Structures are given as structure tokens and as C-alpha cells.
């Protein structure tokens, strides 16, 4: 196995791995600072921040060093490579690079949104000079407020790493960004009239190592050191991008992609990035409600859950064939299991259907070519199926009744009056069923709806249970490729709304509290198709067989 020596520390790398010095040093827990290099983009070695000394260990034990510093991002390692990152020569090179980058960089950290997660700040602190020797006034270029609907460019903060330019050329393929001019007049810019409005545009803000590209949506909303992050999964399509939910004081401020090679890689699309606003909507269902006569009144959770439990029990004992439930593909595996298990324990005849799966257009592959057509090797795909967990819910339904009933069958049965009691779980932020389809539920005598936003179905409900959005729940989503990933709670539900797991846990009268991590093992034990969920689900998730 090839061995690389980093600052005297030996690390082994895989036989077929092709690593550069930055990656090899990371294995040894040694940080080589870098700006222009990004694991998902091509190497340009233009920022000169990763300069290191590199040598070769000969079979007789002597080390032959290259007599100059070389960029670590561009230098592949092989067996016997020696990397030195802490010699005086390297330190001098790092400090000189930083001094040069800071020459014209405005010191507006207090008003810069990146402050706190800025690599220029961090590296200057760790590797740079504490004083500027520049005597002349700084050369400050005017800001470009509009380079995209969601992006603003503070030109003077740019360190010309060109990560954003390479992103639009290599990942989105749309190529809107470019470097104009040369030398110290270099600037990032767009072609006139062609702003960065592709569906992956928000990623250029994340990959910008400094505060040059900022998100208009998040601009000046919050200082980043106040944000608390929770690992989660984007619920807006079946790609299941790993994300971080950043919140402070029970308010979500932004979603950021979390690097996960098993899922989507390093990026996420703008539909998901900005699609979470409904979780703070005023419209949200905030407390359980029950209909009394013609009106709907707010009740407490005990009343609502007892009424739901009794209604389901009575209906199942009277005529269990007239009881059905619709499980939404927005539910987590745990929630689907709790509901399915509870209803099947009342009577095996209760029918469980998969809720409406929203499909919008076609799978959208990136990079695109000049004509906007997808190229052969997609690096990022936005899925047409706009729900996060169809596969997980299907696995649960398959286990409990051997087949998956289509929602159309339930609706047509309901229209003909063959369904008396229906437990309908929503969760689609766009409302789910259309009004014309929901009208089929008019003959249902007892309609129980668990949802987050008012919908045509919840308008007809006899009992409404106010559930939680993805940021308020714990559980597991299984994406289109069968990758199970954990979502973690980051905020509390508004007012009296409760996360769905807790509602269903209380409904099925289980002991203790709902804990997704523990409960996941029970499911893995019982459902062979979901056996991969056993044990701790780490950040990158587990691929189900």
C-alpha cells in the first residue's frame, strides 16, 4: 500500500486512489490552505495558497526534495512522496500569498456576510501577517448588485480563485460567469444581459471562499456565528440531497448542501435551497381541530388523539373493509411504520395506500450544453419526483400488506361511499390533492387529516392533526437510489403543532417518547427490506439493498 509522509507523519493511501497533496495531508489531519482547489472542480492552481515542499523518498532511505515550493493541489502523491507544510520556506510562501491577496481586499469584515465562515479571515489568522505594508490607497472596484436573481457580487472582496466560473462551466454547464480584464483589473462578471439564473446558481455562493458572492435571500439576515446547524435531507425531490439546516431562535435562515459522495455530491439545487419558506408560513396548521356541527373548533391534543383513536378502533371493529389510510411520500420511514403498524393491528383488512406522488416534468440533468440539453455524463440531477421518501413508504406498505394500493382506488371507492373512515396524511407543501379529487372524499363519514398546511383535503376533514415540517421532525428518508439518510430536528413546531412521529407514537399508545434513532433499529429488525437501517445512521447514510 502506498505510503505518504506528511510533516514526518506517515499515512497510507489506497492502491487505486489518485490524491493530491491537499487530500493526502488531510488524511494526516494536516490542513493545507487552499482557495481555488475544490474537490468537485478541475485544478487550475492559480491562487498559490497551497504551496508546499514536496520530495521523494528513495529506496535507500534518502529523501530528494524539489528545490522550490509547488502547488499542493496540482501535485499528485505516490508511494514515498514526502510533503512538508511547516518549513520556514512554506510559511513564508503562505504569508506572502495572503499578503498579496489582502492588498486590495477591503477590511469590511463587520459588514460582510461571510465573516465567521470566511477562508480569507481564517487563513490570515492562521498563516498570514497581522499587518499590511501597503502604503497606497486600496484599489476598490464597484459592486455588481445584479449578476443573478439570487446572487450579488461584491467585486472588491474577490480573490480570483475562479471557483464560480469553473462551477458554471463544469457542473451547471451554463457558463454565465467569466473573468474579464487582466492583471490587477481582473474581475468576475457576466455577459451583458445573461445573468446567472440557472437552477444550480445558489451553489456559487457556497463555493466562494470569501464574501464576494452573497445570497440575496440571506444577505444581512443573520451573522453566521449565531446559526446552529442540524444535518438533514432536502425534502423537495427524490434526489435526497444531504443538507444542513441553519437556524437561530427557532427561525430557519438558510439551507446549505452537505458534502455526501453517496448522495448528490457537494451541491444542491435552488428549488431546494430556497423552497423551505413554507415552514414559517402564517398559513401553517398550528393546533389540532375537530368539527362540531358545521364549524371547526380548536381542541387540545388529548381530545383530538383520543377521538382519532376511538374512531379508528370503532370503525375497524364494525366494518374494517371501510377503513383506509393514505400514507404520504413526505412521511419518514418511522412515521409510515407507526401508522401502518397501528392500523394493521386494529384489523388486517384496513387498506393502506400511497399518497399522491408529485411528478413535475422530467429529471433535469446537469451539466447542460450550449443549447440547454443535458450531456452524457450527468454530474447533478434534479429529480422530477418531488417527494423525498416514496421508496421508504413503499417498503413499509409492501411489508404490511404485500402490495401498494394506488390512491386512485381509494378515491374511487370513497366516491362510491365504500369508505367510512379515512386517515389521510399530507405533507406536500404545494397542497397535494387537487380540489376536484378531494371532492371524492365528500362521502367519507370520518376524515382524519394530518398535514402541515391547509389543503382541499384538510378543508373537508372532521379531525385535523397539525404536523411538523421536515425541519421539525426526526426520522429517515430513502431517496430514489435507495440511500437511507437521517433527518434531524432543528426547530420546534409552531404553536401547538407537533412533529408527526410524536403524534403517531401517542396515537398508537406506545410507552416512552418517540426517538427516531432507537426506533429505526426496531424497524430494521422487522422489515427485511429496510434491514440496512440498523445501527447508527451516519452523516452519509446507508445504501439499502
Amino acid at each position, binding site marked *: 500500500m502506498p505510503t505518504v509522509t506528511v510533516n514526518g507523519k506517515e499515512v497510507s493511501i489506497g492502491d487505486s486512489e489518485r490524491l493530491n497533496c491537499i487530500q493526502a495531508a488531510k488524511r494526516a489531519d494536516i490542513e493545507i490552505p487552499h482557495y481555488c482547489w475544490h474537490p468537485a472542480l478541475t485544478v487550475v492552481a492559480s491562487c498559490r495558497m497551497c504551496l508546499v515542499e514536496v520530495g521523494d523518498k528513495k529506496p535507500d532511505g534518502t529523501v530528494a526534495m524539489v528545490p522550490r515550493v509547488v502547488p499542493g493541489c496540482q501535485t499528485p502523491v505516490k508511494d514515498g512522496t514526502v510533503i512538508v507544510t511547516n518549513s520556514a520556506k512554506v510559511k513564508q510562501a503562505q504569508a506572502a500569498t495572503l499578503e498579496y491577496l*489582502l492588498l486590495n481586499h477591503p477590511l469590511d469584515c463587520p*459588514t460582510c456576510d461571510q465573516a465567521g465562515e470566511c477562508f480569507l479571515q481564517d487563513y490570515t489568522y492562521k498563516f498570514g501577517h497581522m*499587518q499590511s505594508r501597503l502604503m497606497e490607497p486600496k484599489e476598490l472596484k464597484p459592486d455588481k448588485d445584479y449578476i443573478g436573481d439570487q446572487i450579488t457580487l461584491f467585486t472588491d472582496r474577490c480573490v480570483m480563485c475562479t471557483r464560480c466560473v469553473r462551477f458554471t462551466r463544469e457542473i451547471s454547464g451554463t457558463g454565465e460567469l467569466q473573468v474579464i480584464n487582466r492583471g490587477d483589473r481582473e474581475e468576475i462578471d457576466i455577459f451583458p444581459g445573461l445573468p446567472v439564473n440557472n437552477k444550480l446558481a445558489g451553489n456559487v455562493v457556497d463555493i466562494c471562499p470569501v464574501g464576494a458572492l452573497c445570497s440575496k435571500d440571506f444577505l444581512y439576515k443573520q451573522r453566521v456565528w449565531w446559526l446552529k446547524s442540524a444535518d438533514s435531507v432536502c425534502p423537495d425531490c427524490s434526489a435526497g440531497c444531504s443538507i444542513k439546516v441553519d437556524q437561530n431562535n427557532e427561525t430557519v435562515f438558510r439551507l446549505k448542501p452537505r458534502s455526501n459522495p453517496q448522495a448528490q455530491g457537494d451541491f444542491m439545487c435552488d428549488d431546494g435551497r430556497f423552497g423551505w419558506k413554507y415552514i414559517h408560513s402564517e398559513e401553517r396548521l398550528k393546533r389540532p381541530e375537530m368539527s362540531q356541527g358545521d364549524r371547526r373548533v380548536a381542541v387540545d391534543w388529548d381530545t383530538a388523539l383520543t377521538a382519532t383513536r376511538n374512531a379508528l378502533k370503532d370503525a375497524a371493529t364494525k366494518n374494517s373493509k371501510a377503513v383506509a389510510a393514505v400514507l404520504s411520500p413526505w412521511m419518514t420511514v418511522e412515521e409510515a411504520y407507526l401508522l401502518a403498524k397501528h392500523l394493521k393491528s386494529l384489523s388486517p383488512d384496513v387498506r393502506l395506500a400511497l399518497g399522491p406522488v408529485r411528478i413535475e416534468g422530467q429529471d433535469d440533468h446537469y451539466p447542460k450544453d450550449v443549447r440547454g440539453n443535458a450531456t452524457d455524463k450527468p454530474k447533478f440531477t434534479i429529480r422530477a419526483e418531488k417527494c423525498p421518501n416514496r421508496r421508504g413508504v413503499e417498503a413499509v406498505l409492501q411489508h404490511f400488506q404485500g402490495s401498494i394500493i394506488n390512491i386512485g382506488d381509494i378515491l374511487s371507492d370513497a366516491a362510491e361511499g365504500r369508505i367510512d373512515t379515512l386517515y389521510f396524511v399530507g405533507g406536500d407543501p404545494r397542497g397535494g390533492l387537487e380540489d376536484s379529487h378531494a371532492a371524492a372524499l365528500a362521502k367519507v363519514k370520518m376524515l382524519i387529516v394530518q398535514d402541515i398546511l391547509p389543503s382541499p383535503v384538510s378543508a373537508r376533514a372532521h379531525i385535523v392533526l397539525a404536523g411538523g415540517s421536515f425541519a421539525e421532525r426526526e426520522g429517515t428518508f430513502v431517496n430514489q437510489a435507495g440511500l437511507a439518510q437521517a433527518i434531524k430536528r432543528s426547530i420546534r413546531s409552531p404553536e401547538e403543532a407537533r412533529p408527526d412521529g410524536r403524534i403517531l407514537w401517542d396515537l398508537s399508545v406506545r410507552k416512552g417518547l418517540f426517538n427516531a434513532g432507537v426506533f429505526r433499529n426496531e424497524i430494521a429488525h422487522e422489515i427485511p427490506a429496510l434491514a440496512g437501517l440498523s445501527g447508527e445512521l451516519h452523516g452519509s447514510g446507508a445504501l439499502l439493498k
Partner: protein
Amino acid sequence: MPIQEKDVVWIEEPELSFWEQTFLPAVAGGLKVAIKHTIEQHSVTEQYPEQKPDLPLNYRGVHRLNRDEQGRVRCVACMMCATACPAHCISIVAEDASADWPDRDKRPQSFVLDELRCIFCGMCEEACPCDAIELTSIYNLTGQNREQMTFDKDKLLSIYDQTKDNPRDPIRTHRGRLGCASELERQPISATSAKPPEGPRAKKS
């Protein structure tokens, strides 16, 4: 910079001598002070409110928000004060200022300071990178309800207007000592003669 091992000085507690261990000299010293106060009686009570107290110049009273040369709020809504505040009494909502103020990126849309929560420690003043928030010598702060004690941006600016001409409340600027690049002391004198660039964005750095 993090604290370096070489910068840390370790000191030992001095050892007590025989007499110090008996505590007798300390007891005698204490008695001496008590007797002195019994013999020389002079009053230290101030007749407040008829007689106003003579406060030290670094007294920390009610806050104010300073104005810049153009009369605009000097605060850039960086929220350093809110971050430094141990009592969490400052809440700021920032907004983009570049549309009306071409030389500034960011300003406070609202700046609310809860004087009841404040512990008057002066951390906000120390954290402020642009000399915007300061504590004045106003010590007799009263209000009839909580709302009156919650100061917003206009109220804090009006305190600046009230106190700016008071010699006890000078603008305690530390401009020029903000950061590495603005530190001019170690540079040759000719460096200071370099003229700042023309145009409104010159102040940004």
C-alpha cells in the same frame, strides 16, 4: 492570535512569614483603621439630589448611537455589540444601505436596546468597530413602564443629540486603531501623506 505557551507567565503564591502566619499584624492594622475613623469624623454622604454627584469620566450610563459627519446613524449593523453583550439586550435588524447611501453597504433597520436588561458593562462600546454605540454619563434613567425603557434607534440617536456637546461625553473614538491595515504607527511618516482615493467608496476600508 491564540495564546502562545511562551507568553504565559506562571507565578507562585508568596510564602507567609512567621508573623504573617499569626495574623496579629493584620489584626492590629485593622484596629488602627477603625480607631482612626472613630477619632477623625468627616462625612462622606452626598446630598443627592440637591447635590449632583461628581462622576468619574469613564462612568458608564445610558447608551447613545452616534451620528456620522452627514448626520446619519454611524452604526453599520455589524452586530458585534449584540454578540459581545453578556445580557443579550441588543437586537438589531440589518438592511442593505447601498441604494440610498452609496458609501455604505449595511445599516440598521431597527436597533433596539433594552435598558432594563443591560448591565452597563460597556462591552458593546468596546466591541463596536466604528465608534457608533457609546455609554454616556446619564445615570438617572427612569421610566414608567417597560416600553419606555426599551430604547429604539431614534431614541438612542436623540440621546446623542442631547449629549454631544456635553464635555463629559466626548466621542471616544479609536478610529485609526481598528485593525492591521489601519495601524499607521509603525509605518514611515510619508505613508500618512498618501491621499485617500476620491469617490464615495473610499471610506469602506
